[in-house]
Each structure stands twice: as structure tokens, then as C-alpha cells.
């Protein structure tokens, strides 16, 4: 029997705000334990939550970017459960009236090669709501310690419909979501730092069946690759169970990325009764059109919209466009160079091939680069106008990468300018013809390729400065072809 897979993802994303979700204490990562706390974070007797408006702004922006319906009125609920990482023993979250309903994330599946764009699909979202993050438990041999620095950090939970068909789609979903959220400055989505976390609900069913199979929730998928590997492993496990006549039980499983295995964490019977109810400490929030419009105006162009523009209007090859749009700063950098007059395809080439390569080799980020969009535009212009040859341009690039000197300056200082002086060019051509009668003979007897030896001689005589196109014309004229 053939099986198909149905996956729904629950993605938690920490919102990048200066302070926590319900109190004015700094939010952050990597600080000494329990320093980002106050009476509210520690749930001391009498402490009360107050909403951080920046977190609501962020989720509204996310919703607008992903075409969600934004609630007119959104409310806060308490999710009650006891666990030492949760200081109040309830989490403030949104159950009945989340900020965002519906919406979709556009994804791109891998193409046949890096140069070929894969299929685009839309993954529908169920909802996005806002809640607070919990603290962190550090387990020792005989005891466990709690660090509440993370507790109360604003967290968005993005829930997809059960509409993802494969591990590749899940991977593409997370990649696309991350790109969009980073573009809009909502989160850094660094999975290593726990800024983006993913649980997957996975089920299989025989092809043709329309009812959903029993779902298994897979947790602890700590990187985008673990999401893909974990899902693949779970699909395999479920198919094994099904084909060997067993029953898949509804449960939560914990994935271990290192061993590539998962183990049951709790069964359906052990599921919590969270006793949700509206949080009486917080007022509902009314979201009106002016508020949404103000945030809409702050939204960046969506990554795939940008990719289409790069492909269609700027005629970039997919291999360049796909790299440029991955990083908003990089695509902005590229567009700055284009706005300064650079030919898009050439600028994209220099950025994607040379700049990224050299930055990676030097361990630098784009912001640290001494080569600015103006440098790129200048270099592309010199090349385009035939002032430098492509080999010379490479030399200019590596000079300006090291020093930050403007390309025209490098050309002048190093005398890299191509010669277009016809007298000088004719002199070099004549000398080359005189010095290589054999090649001249070959050309004249019907082998046009032999002209390359003469061109090489001209380049050598001119120390690389001769304009290849003009040299070609002069030689052909002299040789009568």
C-alpha cells in the first residue's frame, strides 16, 4: 500500500523587543542567570502583567505580511499547568480570540539544480497568537536549576493547517517563514538560540483516503535540518508500524537530533487539561484600521515578490536572484548598486560570486565590507564601458576589497586602464604579426583560430592593457579576413 503524509507545524518565534511581553524588564539572550527578572517575571505575590505594545505591533505586522485576518478585538487567556519553568504556573496566551486567523506562507521547493527554480506553493495557516515564553531548566545530576531570563519573552505561535505533504515542504516552509520574519525585523529566528522552535504533527494515510490518520506530535526539532530529518524518521516509523499490522497511537514524541531517533514522551491519556479562561488581569485589545495602516506602511517587500521582480524586471538569472533575496540587507545592497547605475546582471554577478566569496573567506559580514554598492556600481561601469578588461576588473575588485579604495582610483594608481589608442594598438598588432609568421600563415590558409596566438602576443606586448575587441578588429583587417 502507498501512503501519503500530512503534516501540520506549530512554530514558536521569539519576537525581538527591548523588553518582555508583560513587564518592563529587558528581554535578551546570554545574560547571567536570573538577571533579566523582576517581581512580574518571578511571579512574586501581588505582581501584575501589563502588555508590551511593541509585541502586538510585531504580530500584527506578521499577520499583515502573511495575509491573515487581523482580529478587531483580541483577548488574553490563562493556560494553567504546573512546571518549574513557568513562574506563575500558568502561561498568558491567546486561546479564543488570537490576533491572527488564516493567512498563508508561500514556499519554494528545491529545483532540479541550483540554477533552476523549483515549484512554488502556498501553505495555509490556521492562526497566529501571542504568548509569553517560559524559563529554562538546567538539569544537574541531583538537582535542577531554573533560569528565568527567558521567561516572559514575547513569543508568537504560528500554526499551519494540516496541509504540508513532505519533509521538504516543511523545510521550505520554515525557511520561507524565517526569511519573511527576519526581513520585517520581527525576529532573528536563530534556532540555536531558541528564537525559533518547531513542533510537527505528523500522520500518514493510504493514498486516496480523505480522513486524517492518527497524529503524532514530534517535539524538540531544534534546527531546520532536524525538522526535516525528524519528520522523515517519523514518517518511516509510522509506515513501518502500519505495514507490520500495528496501530499508530496518538502521542507526543521527543526527537533526538544526534541519534536521529525519537521516543514517546506522553500519550493522549496523559494530555493536560489546561483549564483555559480569560485572564482577568489584562484588558482586551482593540485593533483599528489606522493602527493596521501604520504598520502596513512599515512592511518590507515580501521576499518572493522581490524574487519575481528581480527575475522579470531586472532579468537576473535564478541562481543570482535566489541568493540575493535570502538576505534583505544583501538584496538592499544589490538594489543600491543598481540605483547607482550598475547593470543589474553584472552587479548581481559581482555580489553573488565575488563579494560573498571574499566576505566568507575573510569571515566578514556585509556590514563590515569595505566594498560598498558605490564600489560595485563603479566597477561595473568601468567594465561595461571597456575601460578595464574582465581580468583587470578582478584585480580591481580584490584591491578595493582589501583597501576600500574606489575602483577608478585603483585603475589609475595601478595603470590598469585598457588602451584604446589606435596608433598604439596598431603598433602592438604589427609587432605581433611580424613576430609570428607561422600563425599568420595558418590564418591565411584557412584556420581562423590561429588568430588567438596573435591576440595573446598583443596582450603580452601591451601588458594586458590592449582592448581585446579593438585588437580583434585591427588584426582581422591586417590579415584580410
Amino acid at each position, binding site marked *: 500500500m502507498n501512503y501519503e503524509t500530512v503534516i501540520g507545524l506549530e512554530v514558536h518565534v521569539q519576537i525581538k523587543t527591548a523588553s518582555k511581553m508583560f513587564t518592563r524588564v529587558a528581554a535578551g539572550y546570554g545574560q547571567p542567570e536570573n538577571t533579566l527578572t523582576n*517581581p512580574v517575571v*518571578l*511571579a*512574586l*505575590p*501581588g*505582581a*501584575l*502583567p*501589563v*502588555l508590551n505594545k511593541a509585541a502586538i505591533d510585531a504580530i500584527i505586522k506578521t499577520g499583515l505580511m502573511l495575509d491573515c485576518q487581523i482580529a478587531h478585538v483580541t483577548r488574553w487567556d*490563562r493556560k*494553567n499547568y*504546573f*512546571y*518549574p519553568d513557568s*513562574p*506563575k*504556573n*500558568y502561561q498568558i496566551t491567546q486561546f479564543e480570540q488570537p490576533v491572527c486567523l488564516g493567512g498563508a506562507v508561500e514556499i519554494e521547493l528545491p529545483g532540479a539544480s541550483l540554477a533552476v527554480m523549483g515549484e512554488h506553493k502556498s501553505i495555509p495557516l490556521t492562526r497566529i497568537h501571542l504568548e509569553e515564553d517560559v524559563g529554562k531548566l538546567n538539569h544537574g545530576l541531583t538537582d*535542577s536549576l*531554573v533560569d528565568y531570563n527567558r521567561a516572559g519573552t514575547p513569543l508568537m505561535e504560528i500554526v499551519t493547517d494540516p496541509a504540508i505533504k513532505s519533509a521538504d515542504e516543511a523545510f521550505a516552509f520554515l525557511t520561507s517563514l524565517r526569511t519573511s520574519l527576519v526581513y520585517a525585523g520581527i525576529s532573528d529566528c536563530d534556532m540555536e538560540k531558541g528564537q525559533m522552535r518547531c513542533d510537527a504533527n505528523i500522520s500518514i494515510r493510504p493514498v486516496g483516503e480523505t480522513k486524517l490518520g492518527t497524529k503524532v506530535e514530534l517535539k524538540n526539532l531544534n534546527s531546520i535540518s532536524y525538522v526535516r530529518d525528524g519528520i522523515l524518521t517519523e514518517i518511516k516509523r509510522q509506515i513501518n508500524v502500519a505495514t507490520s499490522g500495528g496501530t499508530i497511537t496518538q502521542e507526543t514524541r521527543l526527537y533526538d537530533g544526534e541519534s536521529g531517533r525519537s521516543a514517546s514522551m506522553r500519550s493522549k491519556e496523559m494530555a493536560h*487539561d489546561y*483549564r*483555559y*479562561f480569560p485572564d*482577568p*488581569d*489584562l*484588558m482586551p485589545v482593540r485593533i483599528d484600521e489606522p493602527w493596521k495602516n501604520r504598520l502596513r506602511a512599515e512592511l518590507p517587500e515580501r521576499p518572493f515578490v522581490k524574487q519575481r521582480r528581480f527575475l522579470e524586471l531586472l532579468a537576473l538569472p535564478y541562481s543570482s536572484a535566489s541568493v540575493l533575496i535570502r538576505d534583505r540587507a544583501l538584496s538592499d545592497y544589490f538594489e543600491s548598486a543598481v540605483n547607482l547605475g550598475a547593470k543589474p546582471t553584472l552587479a548581481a554577478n559581482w555580489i553573488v560570486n565575488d563579494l560573498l566569496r571574499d566576505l566568507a573567506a575573510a569571515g566578514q559580514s556585509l556590514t563590515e565590507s569595505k566594498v560598498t554598492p558605490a564600489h560595485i556600481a563603479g566597477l561595473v561601469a568601468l567594465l561595461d564601458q571597456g575601460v578595464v578588461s574582465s581580468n583587470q576588473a578582478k584585480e580591481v575588485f580584490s584591491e578595493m576589497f582589501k583597501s576600500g579604495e574606489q575602483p577608478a582610483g585603483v585603475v589609475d594608481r595601478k595603470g590598469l586602464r585598457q588602451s584604446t589608442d589606435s596608433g598604439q594598438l596598431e603598433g602592438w598588432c604589427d609587432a605581433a604579426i611580424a613576430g609570428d609568421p607561422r600563425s599568420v600563415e595558418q590564418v591565411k590558409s584557412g584556420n581562423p583560430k590561429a588568430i588567438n596566438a596573435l591576440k595573446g602576443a598583443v596582450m603580452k606586448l601591451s601588458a594586458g592593457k590592449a582592448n581585446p575587441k579593438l585588437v580583434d578588429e585591427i588584426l582581422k583587417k591586417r590579415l584580410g579576413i
Partner: protein
Amino acid sequence: MSSELFYQTISSLAAQLAAKKLTAVELMQAVIARTKAVDGRVQAFNSYDEADALAQAAASDTRRAAGQARGPLDGIPIGLKDVIAVAGQPLTASSKMLANFVSPYDATVTRKLKEQAGAVVWGRLNCDEFAMGSSNENSAFRPVSNPWDLTRVPGGSSGGSAAALAAGAAIATLGSDTGGSIRQPAALCGTVGLKPTYGLISRYGLIAFASSLDQIGPFARTVEDAAIVLGAIAGHDPLDSTSFNAPVPDYRSDLAAKKGPWKLGIPKEYFAEGLDPEVGAAVEAAIAYYKKQGCEIKEVSLTNTQSCLDTYYIIATAEASSNLARYDGIRYGHRSKSATDAIDIYAKSRAEGFGAEVKRRIILGTYVLSSGYYDAYYLRAQKVRTLIRQDFLNAYKEVDALLTPTSPIPAFKIGEKSDPLALYLCDIYTIGVNLAGLPAMSVPCGFTKSGLPIGLQLIGQPFQEANLMAIARSYEQAHDWHSKHPVL
């Protein structure tokens, strides 16, 4: 009015302080001496810090000497119920759970009293554990005695706040009122007690019992004193999302400005079975007073009154079950010595740390929120709550305020009511006000033949505390119940 300093009013003491006939340290010393003389019998205090209080008083005198006195409360000792946080002082909620907890921060009302008003924050006042109770017998430490009869309860849950004031161990006190916890003890101890409109006073730093019902308010010797304290603690607080954002009126000067006659409503459901005849008679006499003053008295009906108790015990316990989850023995508070892991710490610490009434309410609240019961209990209770509020608002289309007894009975004997339901019935006249979020106060309106105080409850319109207090003051000025003191 008695000549002893500790029995005088804020307005009288403020005048003496302003005239430099008295220092704040002298006043504090008098209150400390009185406290030491009576509290062994009344047991209104969980703890007090003499040195800290005298230092605050000395600071007040220094301010005054420098011409920087902050107003009528500067140098006045005000006692706080032990559910309101004071930085550096114990905060126990009269529970074993928090027996050794010291608050690292001030509640907003505490900060306002100290920093803006210059009051001397004095003592941690006994109460029912986590403010759950109507007799103060639920204190995990010791019951409070009613100063008028030490064998009787002071009411609750703010029993210590009422008893300390009635006994002269503070000049005013703060309590909290979730279902009558200020008004009922005020009535039973013969003091003025005001429960403000929900949202008027910040709850930041008040140990939460039921967040949508809790409200801090003053106990005072006169309506004017209550107005002075209310003015000092009211107002918007950015640390409490449910606090109302509007300017605070000058309650004290409004008292003199607002004059009747008023239209007063008598809710017929509040004069039904279970009302003690002596209490009923005293309230009838108060109604007669207003009538004589030219007030229009109108019978009104609050048709959902019967549902108040059920509704209250669903909503209050649901919220409490969640609010009290933080007391888990992990970060602070009682931790069981025999616990072996996290779940065990929760179970044993809470089993050992909470008293029977607190456990009863947590269990009830957990039940009504449980999956499958939520709609039938919690959701329905919220709908009834809306109807109860609507009853009051409908009545206010015809009248300015309502007059009722505060408590159906005067102070009862310690240990007399062991059935929780019998105790819950003590609150039948007060809980509707919390469900509707309204302001209400209790003022002394007489004594039983055996000498126990009786309280008159006045229920006002949302955020119309000034009006409410003016109505109460009219009665107070024509009677002298408020100037009587127990013999201790």
C-alpha cells in the same frame, strides 16, 4: 470624641501636626503603646516594626520642620492588611505558605502612601488566609478578636484592619474587598469601610485572590478620613492594566460641596429572610433619617440577587485557583522538607502550606474551569454576572444610591459557625457589589442591645465615590455612633 491621640481622626491629628502641637513621633509612640497594650487580646497584627515606623515618623517631622509636609496624611500611622506589599516587610497573607516571605517591593498603594502622602506605613494586619473568609478565623496564625467583644469575630477577611482601627492601634487602615472583606468587618467593628469602584485603586502589589473582584480600600473613623485616604491611594497606575485612567477628584472638598436631597433606593431582596431584627431596625431608622432630610426613598428590585452567591463562588474560586498556583515552593514560600522532586514539591508544599478554606476554594475553582464543566459553570457565571451588573445599572436610572444592611447579622462568636456555607451567607449583601464592580461603603448605624456595632451599607454608581461619601457623611454628621469606642 475621645481625647486619646490613638482614637482621634486623621483630620483632627493633621491639624495638630500642622499647628506643631504634636509631632509624628509622639503620635507614633502613642499608637505603638496602645498596640502593645491591646494587641495581646485583639491579635489584629501579624507583625509590626517599631523601629521602622518611628524612623518614618521622624522623617515626617523633619519634612514638616523644613516646610515640606506632604498633606493631611503626613505622619499619620496607617496599618496595612497583610496582603499588600511593603518593601522590606513580611507579606504573609496570614498563610503558612508565606510565613517567612519578605516583599522586595512596594505595592502601588504603599508607594503612594509613603512617597506622595508621607504617611507612616504601620504594621502587617491579620486577615483570613489569602483574604478568603468572613470571620478572620481562617488566619493560619491566630484568629482576630472583635474589640467590642473579645469572644466574637471581627468579620473578615480584613478583620485585622477593622479591629486594629477600632482598638486604636492605627489611625486608619487599608484592607481589600473581594466579596465584602472591607465592608463586613467595618460593620462588625463599628468603623467606616469603603470598597471603591473596581479599577479606581491599583492592585499592583496586592496579593491576588480573585483579580476581577479584588479592590483595595480604606477603613477610617469618619467618612472624611476615608475620603482623605482614598484621595491618596486612588488613580491610574501603569503597572495595573485594569486600573482606570481618569483624574482623581478632590474627595475631601467634594464632601462639603455635594449636598442632598438624594434619591435613594431600597433593594427589596436585601430585606428578606435571614436578616437579624436588630440590624433590620437600625437600617430602617437610617432610612427614616434620609426620608426626614427630604430624600426620595424608592423600593427597587435587584432581580438576580439570589444568584449572587453562586455566581461569586464560581468566578472567585476559578480565578483564585489560577492566582494561587504561583505558591509552589519553587521560588519562594513554604517548601516541604520531605519533597523529593518537582511534582512532589508542589503537592507537599501546597498540602502543608495552605489551610482548609484555601484548599476548598482552589479545588472548587479547578473543578469549574475543567474541560467539560467550563461552559456550564464559569461561562454561565460570567453571563449571570452581566445580568447582576445590569440590575444595579437599571436601578441607577431611578436612584442615586442604594441603602442596605452591610451584614445580615452582627458579630458572632469565634467558633460559632463551622459550616462554610453558613459563613458564605454572611456576604449576601456585599458580594453583588463586587460582581458589579461598584463602589460601596459601610458606616456605623447603631448597636445591638448587647453592644455590638451595626453597619449601614451605601452602594453608589461607578466612579461616583464623592457622591457616595457625601450621602454617608450626611448620616454620620447627624449621629454619633462613629465616635464611640470599645472598652479595652
